[in-house]
């Protein structure tokens, strides 16, 4: 098996690397294939991610290196498991998808291993998408959508979304301070680039006004799809791919990208993992623009390697967060602020909800 795949593998990879730092890329792959085929366990978000990742990343990686990838679904917030895994040295996963906030929490507690390459190795990667212990594979964006059949006066900003007189319609918000606080401040006229540090007092004043008009407080991504699709509400904020899923399924709705906040999901390594070498190889592989482009066919997340847009159809690009048209209307959510303040603000948000 190993012998058979050695040669074609190297060629494929060199092609894949597309001349970008070919030498640097080739070395780890060679070392990987020199050994017997390794099986790594990869924790992805599950659900639709499983098949989409398999097609875009796992299968091509297996083909390219001869290693096996077994994917399992991780929790929405895998940090607790991650922590227990490292502390007890029982590595159920070799590599795991993390949100930026999870990355920061884990990094702070010293639970991550370095990924072994840097921005210089993949220059077309969005700079926010790579750090010493993390490489982003996809970008999701918190935007809002409205039902075109119910909302006649099309809202175009968070200010419009929060204006219940001028833009009537049933609304939902997320039952979580993250995103909701930002949306309130944006609605109140805070410019996108001056959001952080968040002015909590100001945000709650804005939220006070819209509170009686919020029909539904959603808690899960699938729920936001369902709310939009079933017509339970007429407009709601959500993650672009979840809202896009309803639109792809024929729901008459439109996404407003203006003032969107995006964030990145990507790979991280549990500290001291036994198969870190192959896992690093895998992460590196996921930076490939063609693989990332393939991923966007299945799910409407933005590639982090902007070169991917060279092969993405123009129609599809329109609904992806990192396409130039959309990206320029948005800003990245500040995870640092949240990791410092989340606990306190969550407590306050919960109290506000109950009041």
């Amino acid at each position, binding site marked *: 098996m190993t012998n058979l795949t050695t040669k074609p593998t190297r060629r494929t990879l060199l092609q894949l690397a597309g001349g970008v730092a070919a030498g640097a890329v080739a070395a780890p792959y060679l070392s990987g294939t020199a050994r017997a085929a390794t099986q790594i366990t990869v924790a992805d978000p*599950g659900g639709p991610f499983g098949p989409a990742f398999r097609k875009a990343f796992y299968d091509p990686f297996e083909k390219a290196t001869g290693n096996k990838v077994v994917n399992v679904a991780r929790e929405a917030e895998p940090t607790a498991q991650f922590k227990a895994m490292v502390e007890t040295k029982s590595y159920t996963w070799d590599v795991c998808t993390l949100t930026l906030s999870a990355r920061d929490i884990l990094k702070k507690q010293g639970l991550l291993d370095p990924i072994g390459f840097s921005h210089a190795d993949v220059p077309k990667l969005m700079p926010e998408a790579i750090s010493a212990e993390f490489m982003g594979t996809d970008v999701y964006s918190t935007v809002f959508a409205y039902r075109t059949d119910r909302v006649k006066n099309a809202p175009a900003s968070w200010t419009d979304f929060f204006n219940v007189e001028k833009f009537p319609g049933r609304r939902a918000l997320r039952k979580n301070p993250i995103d909701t606080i930002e949306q309130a401040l944006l609605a109140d006229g805070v410019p996108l680039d001056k959001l952080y540090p968040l002015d909590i007092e100001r945000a709650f004043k804005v939220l006070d006004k819209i509170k009686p008009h919020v029909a539904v407080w959603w808690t*899960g991504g699938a729920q936001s799809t*369902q709310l939009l699709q079933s017509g339970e509400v007429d407009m709601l904020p959500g993650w672009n791919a979840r809202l896009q899923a309803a639109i792809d399924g024929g729901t008459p709705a439109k996404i407003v990208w203006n003032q969107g906040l995006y964030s990145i999901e990507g790979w991280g390594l549990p500290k001291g993992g036994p198969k870190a070498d192959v896992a690093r190889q895998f992460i590196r592989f996921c930076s490939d623009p063609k693989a990332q482009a393939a991923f966007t066919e299945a799910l409407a997340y933005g590639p982090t390697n902007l070169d991917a847009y060279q092969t993405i159809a123009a129609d599809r690009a329109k609904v992806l967060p990192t396409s130039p048209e959309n990206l320029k209307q948005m800003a990245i959510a500040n995870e640092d602020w949240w990791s410092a303040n989340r606990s306190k603000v969550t407590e306050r948000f919960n109290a506000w*909800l*109950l009041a």
Partner: protein
Amino acid sequence: MSAVAARAAPARRSGFRFGPLWLAVPGLLFLAVFFAWPVAQLLGLSVVDPENGGLSTESYRRIAATDVYLRVLGITFRIAGWTALWSLLIGYPLAYWLARLPDMFRGRMLLFVMVPFWTSYLVKTFAWMIVLGRSGIINSLATGSGLIDQPLPLLHNMFGVMVGMVHAMVPLAVMTMLPVMTGIDRRLVQAAQTLGAAPARAFWLVYFKLSLPGVAAAGLLVFISSLGFFIVPAFLGGRQETMLAQLIITQVQELLNWSFAGALAAMMLAAALVSCWIYDRLFGISTIAGGSAQAGAGRIRDLGLAILGVVGDIAGRAAAVTQRLLGKRICGWLLPGFCWLVIGFLVLPTLLVIPLAFTSSQFLEFPPPGYGIGWFRTYFESPLWIQATIRSFMVAFATALAATAIGGFAALALAHSRTRWSGLIFAFFLAPMIVPRIVIAVGLFYLFARIGLVATDLGLIIGHTVLAIPFTLVTIAAVLKTYDQRLDQAAATLGANRVRTLTGVTIPLVKGGLVAAFLFAFITSFDELTIAIFISGGVKTTLPKQMWDDMILQLNPTLAAVSVVVFVVVTVMLLLAERFRSSSSS
């Protein structure tokens, strides 16, 4: 005889009269290691500073600093309380009706009552969203027929939560009340009538009073089980319906503040224990297993009887008026009519899931725009779903075996024992029911992570067995209570040893109870999510966990297809079991 004497002798000689309680020892050890220890450890974390590992009361001070946690606790108790109340109000007439049916017919009707058990509550929750939503079935029908102009607010409020929770809990309430009710001598009500009590009055003064232990046990079970709910309130509730379990999960999973999670868990546990203590004062905890209620101390008892007297008086008059208005014939149909409505309510979400499974749409929408078997194909072609299904069945089966054995031996031990230890041991065995699941799940996860049981089938089985033991113990103990122990003595005098007595006499005679316990444990495991979330590690996925993953990210009708497949499999299994049982008994 000689066997009994020979075995009893050493215990007496040692002076320590533990006697048959030895049978409970495996269960005690099991719960000590996999329940008491992990929970204690989690609670211990609440007084540990997460930064430096030293002792700290910071977490508790934080809870005290704001009223938000107390308020969420209040909401949790309010929702659990209302759920218990409504489950009793709806379940009581149903159980009463079932208790009066002939045995054969009752068995069949019980299958209907159990239907909601076999549909994952994740699926049921979405079914209710489809029924109650703004453009849901009820509102479409009501607005379509011109009954109302504006859609009714049925969802994302307390009403929605109650529908979802009560629907999930009515079967438990009915199953708990039914044995008590079937045990009530119906001639007592006749006696009251011949002594001059109108039927309604006779019901309240005699039947209702005698069914109270069952009502109280059902109320406590539903209440405690409801305390740990978080999915139904999250999806069907509104802004205010936040449960403490949700906050604990957030602390554990998202904020990684285990110390604070431990403190919240301790608060929840303390509150649950206080409710149990109050319950014990009022009814006696042993009524959960069908024991007779304490007669109660003078004044409380007199007050209770006086209240019942007044209620009976009013009910008697109301019944007379109703009967005059509606006529005898219609009045006779009120109870069966109501019960069929309740059964309809219980079965509705499951029925709804069937067309949803055959939808051609990408979404769980009703009515489906077209029909096809695409989602069944998706299910059968997905190794992930199939593996999860098989694992769920295997784990549930192993759990049911283990829990029935452990619970059965414990029940046997307690039934034979007359020492003052037995009350304490009984309470300990019930504890996993009283401690919120999330607390057990997190504690077990912490323990399993260190001994390598995370992401193993064994870990899942152990976790589920912990949860199932109280149910099996209670079910079997209730049966043993009515079991004539002289039969065992008879077997012993006829020369059977302990083991032969157990296998040849006791077990065949309490078979009904064992089967019920097995099914209870099976369902407990089969529909369990909280432990699965923590223990499965995403590797050993069970069906509820797999559904939950879908529910978080992207929901599609595979969920409905899975439910239909599971429902068919379980129905076939139950029918086969029933056929086997009736053929072997005849």
